[in-house]
Structure formats: structure tokens, C-alpha cells
């Protein structure tokens, strides 16, 4: 069996759950995966053991204190054996994937959503088409979250490699997000509002629903552009964030092609819109033709009684 190297996704000081999905992707490719965990404290790798993974390498280096593309790629590259490299399709890991591919003179295939032998499929033209490519020999790929099942945990067989890289960027200042809310790019459920919300104050209704179900709050570009209080970081779509949650609830959003570009691959889509002909309904698993004023309170109270 050929070898693959999984770059563990990390965040908040631990290995993220999506790493277990990468193991299933590696197995779908018919490869035998080694998991590489970039860290400053090797104990972080102790939880990075999975069924089907015989080896976990903790790459321990000072450069992993803050994200710096060049040094991360260089340290991970030095510690990782050859083989197909698999990362999560998050902004940071796609960045590292691209750099490691370039370092090894390989090609990179980003945002893989299905694997069939050595054929990999990714969305192109913002999801308006799909492209299947064949890889020959080693390459680097990134895999979208919520596509492959998570491999089960197992005891990790960890070896530690001390390896850092030259850092050429320096963090001057961290600006913490104003709200403690989840970011749309990290959330499994997203409640998004559009121009149909009528005012930025009305987004508080979306926040209430989001709090009930542990969701992030997103927005359409019309909402972001119209209201200063709705920051661009909330924008979903072509010029906002691409999201792939289990559930996307679009409220007062018409469903313009550029909005769909950012969220159409969501597993389930709910649309609340007063216009029965709004294009969003063509993409919704569950559509509610009603004003949000009518529908949201019902949805919120029903979901909150389910959650309790």
C-alpha cells in the first residue's frame, strides 16, 4: 500500500475533529496514513490516534507558536516522509498544502469532496460545476469537512520530531473578535440573514436562534454592504466565506448565484422567505414561505424545546 501523510488540523490547542475525516479520505485513496501534528507541546499528539493509522509524528517546533506559512510548511515538510499529503480544506491548511506541494515540486488539488481510486472531485466555478482530476504519483490534496466519515479513535503511537523553520513574519497585534460568537467558517450550523431582515437590529433574532442550536450567524452581501453593523467577516458567498455546514438556515436571503456560491454544498438548507418564487427555494431542503417575523419565533421555540 502506498503511503500518505495527514497534516492534523489543529485549533484551540488541540487536534480538531476533522482530522479523523482525513483518515477516512486517506483510506479511500488506498493509502496507509501517517498523521503529522504540528505543535509546540508534543502531548497534543496523544489524542491523534485513529483506527487504520499506525504512526503519529508530533512535529514540535517554536515556529508553531503563531501561524506563519513559510516556516510551518518547511518544518512539516522536513518531518513528513514522502507520499500523498492530505490536509483539511481550511484556509490555513490549504495555504500550507500549497506551500508543501511547491516545495516538493508537486501539484496540489484543493477542496476535494469525493475520491474514487486516484480520481478526485472538487467544485469549480464556485460550485457551478464539478471537476474530476486524476493524480499520478505523489501530490498534495485538501479535503472538505463533513464529506468523509470520521475514523474511530485509537491509541496513538507517537514519535516526536524536533523541527522548526525560519519565521519571516511577526505578529504585532491580535485583534480579538468583538463578539464571542462562533465564526461561520468554524460552525456546523449557520443561521444567515439577508436584506429581508430589514435592519441590523433584527439580527438579534437570528442570534437568539443561533444560541439555541449552537450556530454561527452569517449574512448576505446585501446585508453586509447595507449595514455597517454587519461586518464582512460574516459574509457568506463568492466574495465572502465558503461554508460547508451540516445545516444552513437562510433568512430573508433571495439566493443570488454569488450567495449560493458560498453555501450550496451545505448538507441541509432551510430557507425562510416571504417570496414563494425566491431562487433560494430551489436549493432548500426545507422551505418556509413566510416572513421571518412569523416563522422565526415558531422555529426558535420548537427547537429550544427539542434541545432541552
Amino acid at each position, binding site marked *: 500500500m502506498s503511503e500518505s501523510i495527514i497534516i492534523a488540523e489543529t485549533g484551540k490547542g488541540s487536534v480538531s475533529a476533522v482530522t479523523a475525516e482525513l483518515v477516512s479520505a486517506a483510506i479511500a485513496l488506498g493509502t496507509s496514513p501517517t498523521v503529522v501534528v504540528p505543535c509546540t507541546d508534543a502531548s497534543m499528539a496523544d489524542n491523534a490516534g485513529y483506527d487504520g493509522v499506525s504512526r503519529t509524528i508530533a512535529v514540535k517546533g517554536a515556529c508553531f507558536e503563531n501561524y506563519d506559512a513559510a516556516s510551518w510548511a518547511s518544518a512539516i515538510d522536513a518531518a513528513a516522509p514522502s507520499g500523498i499529503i492530505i490536509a483539511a480544506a481550511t484556509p490555513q491548511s490549504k495555504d500550507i498544502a500549497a506551500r508543501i506541494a511547491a516545495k516538493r515540486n508537486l501539484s496540489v488539488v484543493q*477542496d476535494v469532496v469525493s475520491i474514487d481510486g486516484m480520481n478526485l472531485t472538487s467544485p469549480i466555478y464556485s460550485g457551478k460545476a464539478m471537476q474530476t482530476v486524476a493524480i499520478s504519483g505523489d501530490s498534495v490534496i485538501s479535503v472538505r469537512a463533513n464529506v468523509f466519515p470520521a475514523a474511530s479513535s485509537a491509541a496513538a503511537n507517537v514519535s516526536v520530531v524536533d523541527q522548526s523553520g525560519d519565521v519571516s513574519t511577526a505578529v*504585532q497585534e*491580535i485583534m480579538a473578535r468583538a463578539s464571542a460568537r462562533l465564526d461561520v467558517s468554524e460552525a456546523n450550523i449557520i443561521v444567515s440573514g439577508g436584506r429581508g431582515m430589514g435592519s441590523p437590529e433584527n439580527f438579534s433574532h437570528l442570534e437568539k436562534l443561533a444560541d439555541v442550536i449552537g450556530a454561527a450567524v452569517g449574512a448576505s452581501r446585501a446585508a453586509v454592504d447595507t449595514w455597517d453593523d454587519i461586518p464582512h467577516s460574516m459574509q457568506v458567498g463568492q466574495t*465572502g466565506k465558503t461554508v460547508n455546514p451540516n445545516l444552513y438556515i437562510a433568512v430573508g436571503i433571495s439566493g443570488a448565484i*454569488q450567495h449560493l456560491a458560498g453555501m450550496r454544498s451545505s448538507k441541509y438548507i*432551510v430557507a*425562510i422567505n416571504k417570496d414563494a418564487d425566491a431562487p433560494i427555494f430551489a436549493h432548500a431542503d426545507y422551505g*418556509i414561505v413566510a416572513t421571518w417575523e412569523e416563522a422565526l419565533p*415558531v422555529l426558535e421555540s420548537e427547537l429550544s424545546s427539542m434541545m432541552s
Partner: protein
Amino acid sequence: MKNVPNIVVLVKRVPDTNARIVVSGDRVDLSAVKWVISPYDEFAIENALQHKEAAGGSVTALTLGPAGADKVLKDAKAIGVDEIVRVWNDSWSEMDSNGIQSALAQAITDLGAEVVYCGKNAADTGAGSTGPGIAERLGWASVSNVTDVTFEGGLTVTTPVENGSARVSVSGNAVVSCDKGNIKVRKPNVKGIMMAKRAQVSVVSADAPSATVTIVSQTPPPAKPAGKKYEGGASAQEVARLLRDEANVI
């Protein structure tokens, strides 16, 4: 970086984001689409022009593509870049990322650039590979998804981090991949459009390794089964139940 930077901005020709993408046979048929500068590249151009205005130097817009890609270079010229360069070799067809990045990196070296701005991803590939990949090939720093750039006392950029965003200073040569941010992009004015009409595209050549990733097929997105649609706010109760019992997402 020298005192007066030699700035390159990468611009890519992509179908207008409103365009319908039609698949015929097993390839996307782009014969009828309107072509535009990839949306994030507009922010890259704006940042490059602001860099020049703050530090001097010159801005060269660079694209890799066939002659049809000249249009986006002229569009960039109309917005205000100084030089426009297209890298191409008639033997190239469906290139993989390794080929595209090698050729662009070579052209950037030949241009003697010290800083490169590009889009965080292109509207066709959505990949976000080119900026960091080129930086690696050039041995440069790179920062991606940049929402703000300042030039006083060296290059400082704003980029998202786990709990918000960080202001990061960059030493040495760098590739900056640009997200939308709060800057307003300037639009071409009449004088710019006139200058762009007369502007000459310099066409340069480069080498590219042959592709190891080959396109098997391009297909329409999988059709979603028709959803369920309900009238009236009270139906939200039924939808909530379905989210739990049918979709299992709650």
C-alpha cells in the same frame, strides 16, 4: 526590499460571476461567457497601487494565459498599473498547479519583483494555491486572506487568526494574497481607459513542467432532490421536527 519596490500584481481572467456555467460533453463550455478580472484580484490591484503610492516604484500586472487574457491586463491598465505582461507558451493547454506556479514564478523572477499581490483565490478554481505556491518557489514569505495592508515602516498586513485577526509585519520579499477587506477598489477613469487602449502587452515565455494532475471530466453539480416547501410561519414547527427526525442535524 529596495527603497523603491518593484511590485507585481497577478490578475486572472475568469467568467463573470453571474455567468451561467454550461457543461457540454465532459468539459465546461466557456465560449459564450463574459470574461472579467477575478473578483479578489481587484483587491490585489488596489493594494498594489496603494503600495506604490506609499513607497514609490512601479506596478506590473502579470497574467498567465492565451491571447484572450490580454483583456484583463488592459482592464488592469485602465485602473492604473504601469506595465502589463502576459506569460504564455503555445505548447501549454490544461496546466496543473505545478505548471502554472512554476511559469509565474519564473516570470516574476525575470521581472525582478520584490513583492507580489494576488487574489486569495480565483473565481474558477477557488483553490487559493497560487499565492503561497509561488512564494515557496521564490523562497519568499507569504500571507494569505489579507484584509488590510499598510506600508509605514515596512509591510504590515491584517490576516484572520483563530479568535479574530492579527496585524502581521513581513520582512523581506513577500506574496500577499488578498481578501476583500474594507478598502474600496478604484474604478477606471476615462483617461485610464484611453491609455489602456493604446497600451502594449509584453508577452514573455517560461518553462512549465508537464502536468501530473489531469482533468478527467467536468460535470454539472449533482442535482439536489426537490426539497419540501411549506406555507406560513406555523409550518416552522414541522420543519423543526424534520430537522431532528429526518435530517438528524439537530
